[in-house]
């Protein structure tokens, strides 16, 4: 196929952006022609490519296994106004899949190196890097984007950005203002498995709605670690959690999973423990895997999921086809398996429903009960929630674990009964946690004892 005539494309009129003849031939077929499977709103036009090239702002969160692929795919689909956030630096073990990085880049910020590579390889592309945590930015930053794509390896971070985009929604007389809606496309991978989803905040299920799709991390019971180890992993966990704090090697520093000397120390001690119990199978590789909670990863799965995410970005930005509705899982261990389904919005979702959350307690319950509920309940899964309330018109801190001095002062409240703390039926408590950028309100309701 050859269509090498100079393009007549409205790219915002910026000649410096180096559009050589035929550059966008492939993409134009989908944007300048309609078809029976196009979105009902779609109107084929050269202006769409122009929009992608010069106006559409995309935020990419993560510049690792998924992020590198997402950046490449976006750039080669016509997106140019891209910003990328990543708080990590490059490690040797990244190089088997994070292809924008080379040996010489080890130690450098991922976002910066990734942006430089893409901008150099794809003329006209303007990826702007941010060597930051997502929490470093506020609404004014996130509000500027048309679409957000996430290639994260943390559920906490996903929940946070989910909460942030929800907080940007504006309602007028109870009706959602579509202009305040920023679609979020999220991908995740683990070994040969992956998933991709499209979230339209306020309209389709959000991350919190489907929190049970991410089962809480299973930890070995302490009594197994301490008294009845059976597996090599138990021995390693013992050294990591009990022996290291006791023996304080390397001048009492915390375990650094990336320090080979630390891993070697843990490995040798784990072998000793294993020998005591006649357990076989402790290896250096297993030791590192347990200490760092390593998840296996390959280039191919990341390529697949990132590509699906960017296909969705392309569809959402252009309307050239219907977007994924709304969740796809992928697995290529045995043949190739994809399954697409419509996840459902949770009516009483912690994050996106407008329904006030209630906590049912009994009159004997203590603040600890509430704290445990917030952490352990599969729908909550908070990490270290701060709990405050209002009493007699004044703000009262019930427990604040994230600030050391206040934690000490309020720790005694945990053992106190809620009624003793002055909480009454229908009282609101305000909870803030790293899993959400905004505070959440819960209403206390006392169960009637039977």
């Amino acid at each position: 196929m050859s269509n090498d005539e100079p393009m007549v494309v409205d790219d915002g009129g910026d000649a410096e952006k180096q559009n050589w003849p035929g550059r966008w031939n492939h993409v134009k077929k989908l944007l300048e022609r309609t078809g029976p499977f196009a979105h009902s709103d779609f109107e084929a036009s050269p202006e769409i490519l122009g929009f992608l090239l010069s106006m559409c702002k995309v935020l990419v969160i993560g510049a690792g296994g998924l992020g590198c692929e997402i950046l490449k795919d976006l750039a080669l689909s016509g997106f140019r106004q891209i910003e990328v956030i990543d708080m990590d630096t490059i490690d040797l073990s990244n190089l088997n899949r994070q292809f924008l990085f080379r040996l010489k880049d080890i130690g450098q910020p991922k976002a910066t190196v990734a942006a430089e590579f893409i901008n150099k390889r794809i003329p006209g592309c303007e990826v702007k890097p941010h060597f930051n945590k997502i929490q470093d930015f506020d609404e004014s930053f996130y509000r500027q984007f048309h679409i957000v794509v996430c290639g994260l390896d943390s559920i906490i971070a996903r929940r946070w950005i989910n909460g942030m985009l929800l907080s940007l929604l504006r309602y007028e007389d109870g009706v959602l203002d579509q202009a305040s809606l920023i679609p979020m496309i999220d991908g995740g991978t683990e070994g040969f498995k992956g998933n991709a989803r499209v979230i339209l905040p306020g309209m389709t299920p959000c991350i919190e709605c489907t929190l049970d799709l991410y089962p809480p991390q299973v930890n070995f019971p302490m009594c197994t670690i301490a008294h009845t180890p059976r597996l090599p992993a138990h021995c390693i966990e013992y050294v990591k959690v009990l022996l290291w704090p006791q023996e304080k090697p390397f001048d009492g520093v915390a375990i650094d999973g990336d320090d080979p000397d630390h891993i070697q120390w843990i490995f040798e001690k784990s072998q000793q423990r294993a020998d005591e119990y006649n357990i076989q199978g402790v290896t250096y590789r297993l030791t590192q895997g347990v200490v760092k909670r390593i998840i296996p990863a390959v280039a191919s799965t990341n390529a697949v999921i990132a590509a699906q995410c960017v296909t969705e970005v392309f569809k959402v930005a252009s309307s050239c086809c219907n977007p994924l509705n709304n969740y796809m899982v992928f697995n290529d261990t045995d043949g190739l398996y994809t399954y697409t389904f419509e996840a459902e919005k949770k009516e009483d979702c912690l994050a996106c429903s407008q329904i006030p959350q209630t906590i049912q307690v009994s009159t004997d319950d203590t603040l600890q009960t509430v704290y445990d509920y917030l952490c352990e309940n599969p729908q909550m899964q908070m990490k270290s929630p701060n709990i405050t309330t209002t009493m007699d018109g004044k703000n009262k801190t019930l427990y604040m674990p994230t600030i050391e001095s206040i934690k000490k002062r309020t720790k005694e409240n945990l053992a106190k009964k809620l009624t003793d703390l002055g909480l009454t039926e229908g009282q609101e408590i305000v909870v803030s946690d790293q899993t959400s950028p905004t505070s959440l309100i819960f209403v206390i309701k006392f169960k009637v004892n039977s």
Partner: protein
Amino acid sequence: MAAPVNRKNVDKKAKYDRQLRLWGDHGQALLENAKICLINASATGTEILKNLILPGIGSFTIIDGNKVKGEDVGNNFFLTQDSIGKSRAQVATELLLELNNDVTGNAVEESPEQILENNPEYLKSFTIVIVTSLVERTLLDLSSILYAADIPLLVCRSYGMIGYMRLVVKEHTVIESQPDNAHEDLRLDKPLAGLVEYAHSLDLEAMTKQEHMHTPYLVLLYKFLEKWKEMHNGQVPKNYKEKTSFKDLLRSGIRKNEHGVPEDEENFDEAIMAVNTALNPSKIPSEVQGIIDDPACTNLSSESSSFWIMAQALKQFIANEGNGMLPLRGAIPDMTADSKRYIQLQNIYKEQARTDCIAVTSRVQQILTSLGKASDTIQDNEIKLFCKNSAFLRVIRCRSLTQEYSPDSAATQEISMNFENPDSEIYWYIMLRAADKFYSQYSYFPGTYDDQVDSDSVKLKSCVCSILQELTLGALPKEDYIQELCRYGACELHSVASFMGGVAAQEVIKIVTNQFVPFNNTYLYNAMTTTSATFQL
């Protein structure tokens, strides 16, 4: 004897750490010995290679007679603006090599047609050949040469919002299929002698509280099963009702404190949870039964591969020492127990697995002798791996393209079965076949030129009808497919190419490492509906 640890080895282990946890050092070694051939450095092609170079494939060769065009640079990460007019094979090779210093690669600036004409033997030097953007005629010629030479072929293409992949390998055997949800091999329906003896040596009543709550659930299941069998004519619980009843029996064994409240005994909880699966009759999986009944297993010759020789030994074992069962896997799941008794139990299973493996090994040796082959043709550790994975053995045999494309041997039944679903991906298979037919008649793909889209759809429709007739199939359920295919104009969207690059590369890795199970044999991906399907054509 450990290999000397030098900086390069250590660095590679660190670099590849995340993937070594999936296919191990032995899988990696096979990857590093592989020679990959890619025909046509299209976006799909270079994306496939990227995902093979990053994990450290040994070497690659790109065969491509084309010069780089402006639109190629637009969708391909491994071509640049200043490479327009240069050899596409050369440019792509250079930029791909930057991804991994451990990998070597070279470019052959010739068309595949030229290679087939002048030097077809060259293709036989590769571990696997991958083709993209190949016209049908050349593809069929190439495929029959590779099939005859037993070289695996993977065809991959991205066409608008559609992805297509076809695997052609005569026979591919897998020992380490590593299934996601394998059942445990506990043999409670035919308890190990060692387990019986061990269980009898333990008296639950006489145990202290600690001993009682740390007795492994395997032992509990055995003991309570014995009780049940006494009450039920030697039969194990079979249906839902009986299993529920059995769970109650187990529950009754939980100790109570002085107030009559049941203690928290996790081992009993585990036993109760295990009832649903642990009591199912141990049997030979149908895949494995198929393998030991396969003529390749029953009719051995000196040409037979290690896999089939071991399969024959397995078959003999099952009929003799195994008493109708596979060699014991030997692994048991973790369970609440004190360390000492867990290890004891684990050793019982390991010991039986070892005994079974020795029996299989001896049979392998006998077979090798009878075939006039040296006894070290198959190493002991290979046999051990085979025994450990005997429940997971898989064999893939793909039909050739000749078979697929010849009307009298085409998979008409498979296709028409899927025709019943008007949204089936099979319709995109038909459309791609029709597009190729269009190309062979008109030398361009439908919808390539803006001013001919409408007239092309008329011509395409007759190509579709012709294919449907050839394969004696019914009509298309809707004209939509024809319109949409013309819309695409055979464009290659990067994100679709990248998706296919990912799936294709992993299939290549499966073939090369002999781990995990490849698809058989046609995969269609629809990026519009975000669905995909596999067909055996």
